[in-house]
Every structure is written in structure tokens, then in C-alpha cells.
């Protein structure tokens, strides 16, 4: 069937040459088959979503020997170990030198959304920023402030005294997945100051007791 159907073709020589009449139907079935085959192929192989990236700024390396990292107010420290996540608030007080509330103890959290989850904890610690962010979001929606102003104001919020600053420490067994999950939770809770740092010897000891 895949040919151009011809009809007539009789009148040689004699008389005027006439354009051929009759149907010029082309059988399109194979072409359509191929078109659908290609369509299926491209639908199944194409990937629309380009991978996304999550920015994270690391603190600059301390080059001068003996220089200590700056003190942080209203800090929270998360310690990742294997698939577990521990935390403590404020400064670290070893057993030999307990602070106003006694020595620091590690508490365990989880990545769910229920009781004692990182999300709930952060939402309560960082309430000040989250509340103010809602107001800023509204202003941005109504176009009362420009994008750049919004970003600057948000940035100012996250470095204020009331905003929580987070230190992330990991041990040798921590997986990248829990690290990324934690940073993700911090972004959800609009924590602006995130600093991945190394474990101190005191924290290592506490971690050993936990495991």
C-alpha cells in the first residue's frame, strides 16, 4: 500500500496534456508509526528537571596560629554521628567547669516532624526570625519593598541577638545525607548563620558516652 496511487496514465501523445486526475493518497501509516515511536522515546528519556543546588558558606580557614573562632551568642550546636543527631544549646561547659546550668549534656533529636524533631526545635528557637520573616514576606508580596531590600533585611534579622546561630559538628561516622538534611532543616527554619566546624575533645567524650 505504500505507494502513490496512480490512476489512468493512458493518453499518450494525442491531444492536450492534462494534469493527472484522481486521488493522490499517500499511505501515512509507517510515518505515523515512526512518529509515535520517536515521541515515546523522547517522552521517556527526556529529563525536565535540572538538578538543584543548595548554597552553603563555609567559614574561612583560620590561617593565623592561635587565633580562635569568634564567640557566638544564642548558639545551638548539632552533632551528627552515624544516622543520629544530638544537640545542645549555648556554650559548651565540660564537667570539670560547669556553667550556670551545670555541665553540658547532649540530647537526641530526629529528622521527623513530630516530638523532639529538629524542625520543631528550630521553629521554637528561631521564632523571632520566622515571625519577622512572615511580615517581610507580606511586604514583598505587596511590592512594598524591593527584592534587594528584602534580602538585606532578612540578612539583618538572622544575625541579630534573638536569632539562633547553628554550629554543625560531625564525627567520623556521619553520612552526607544527614548533613544535607540538617542544613535543609536550617534553611526551612530560616537560620542564616550556619557554621560547620570540628568537634572539640570535650564533645567527643560526651559523644562516646552516648554511643
Amino acid at each position, binding site marked *: 500500500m505504500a505507494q502513490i496511487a496512480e490512476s489512468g496514465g493512458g493518453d499518450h501523445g494525442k491531444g492536450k496534456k492534462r494534469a493527472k486526475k484522481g486521488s493522490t493518497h499517500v499511505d501515512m501509516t509507517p510515518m505515523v508509526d515512526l512518529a509515535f515511536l520517536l515521541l515515546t522515546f*523522547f517522552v521517556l528519556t527526556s529529563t525536565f*528537571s535540572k538538578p538543584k543546588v*543548595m548554597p552553603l558558606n*563555609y567559614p574561612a*580557614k583560620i590561617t593565623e596560629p592561635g587565633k580562635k573562632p569568634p564567640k557566638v551568642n544564642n548558639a545551638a550546636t548539632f552533632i551528627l554521628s552515624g544516622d543520629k543527631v544530638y544537640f545542645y544549646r549555648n556554650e559548651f561547659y565540660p564537667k570539670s567547669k560547669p556553667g550556670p546550668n551545670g555541665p553540658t549534656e547532649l540530647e537526641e533529636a530526629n529528622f521527623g516532624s513530630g516530638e523532639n524533631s529538629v524542625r520543631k526545635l528550630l521553629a521554637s528557637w528561631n521564632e523571632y526570625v520566622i515571625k519577622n520573616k512572615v511580615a517581610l514576606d507580606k511586604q514583598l508580596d505587596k511590592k512594598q519593598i524591593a527584592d534587594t531590600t528584602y534580602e538585606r533585611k532578612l540578612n539583618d534579622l538572622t544575625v541579630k541577638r534573638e536569632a539562633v546561630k547553628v554550629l554543625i559538628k560531625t564525627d567520623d561516622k*556521619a553520612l*552526607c545525607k544527614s548533613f*544535607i538534611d540538617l542544613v535543609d532543616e536550617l534553611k526551612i527554619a530560616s537560620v542564616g548563620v550556619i557554621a560547620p566546624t570540628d568537634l572539640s575533645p570535650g564533645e567527643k567524650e560526651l559523644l562516646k558516652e552516648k554511643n
Partner: protein
Amino acid sequence: MPKIKMPKGTPSIDMTPMVDLAFLLVTFFMLTASFRNAEPVTVETPSSISDKIIPENVLMVTLDKDGRVFFNLSDAEARKEMLNKMLQKYKIGLSEEKVEEFSFMSTFGCNMQELPAYMNTEAAKRASFPTQGIPTDSTKNELLDWLSFAAVAAGNTGRTAFEEAKLKGAEPKMEDFKPKFILRVDSKTLYKDAQVVIDVFRELNLNNLNFVTSAEAIPVN
């Protein structure tokens, strides 16, 4: 009651609109599809709520779940410059063709001694090339060299692209043309392995890193 007569002959349906649509879709998918380059490693990235799309001019370090390090620089011109500097530094010879081929490859991972053998392997078989990845030990930190040459080369090509865009009359932002530093880790990679690579970045004073993640819905309170 009279009998219902079935029409005889072949029923013909006009398929033209369907075929039109089919071809329209084929054309659309053909034009929008972007094919991925063959990657020597498969990496399952963790997910996050971030919706920032991966930028154009990137230096990407990939870590597989065993902690092997792979490297990719997106810009072909910069790749060539980087490779030539590396060959010079490690005093390794590579033919002009192979250098040209290298500039159009994507992610690679092997030490400098293995590089000529790696380049002589057929393109399809490179994925199974036995290698420990790019060395990052403090005594023989090849990744540091790759990164420092790549950052300079990508910075140069970025600047050229910026100047070109400026000549065309647009008002480009320099920020868009600067090379970005991307880290692609597997969910199961140990963080201490990633930390080695992060420390190399920090050594070069490149502190703004980006982690590749797959998209995830933003939780509603």
C-alpha cells in the same frame, strides 16, 4: 421493526490532526531534550527544598559512596587551559588530539600517572576504568592543583564571556559569569570524606560551596 443496516466498506477516519499533534510533540521533545554526558559514576544525591537551578559556569567535584573523588569543569576552553597547566606541572605528555578530546569530556577521575592510559581507553569503557579517583592526600594533593588551575581558567573564560555580553549591548551582571563551586555527594558518602574535599576548597579560599540536591516539596508548617 426494520433491521438496522450496517454500513459496508472500510470506515475511514481522518488522522491528519492526530498526526499533526504527534509531530508537534516529537519536535517539542526533540528540541527540549538535553542529553546527559556519560558519567563515570552514578551518584544518588540527597534532597533539599532548595529551588536554585545549577548554574552554567561550574567547577564540580563529585564524591561517590566509597569516597572516590571525580572532577568536572563545564567550560571546554577552560578545560584545555587547565589540562595543559597540569601536564606541564606533572611533566606528562599527551597528544594534541587527546587534549582536544579531553576538553569535550565531562566528569573524570584518575591520578596524573593514569591519565594517558585513561585518555587512551575507548570512551565507552572509561566508566569502568579501574581508578581510585583523584588523590587528595596532603602529601600528593592533585585535587588542589586541578582546582586551583581550574578556578583561574574558568575565571578567565567567565570574564571573556562577560565582556562579550557587554559588547552585545546587554547589561550583564559579573556575578552570573563567575565560576561556581559545586559539590556533588552521594547520600551514603561519609561526611569526613566530603570534608577532605571541602578543606581543599577552603585551602584555596573558596568558601561559597553549593551542594547538588534533588528537589523536595517545601513542608507546609
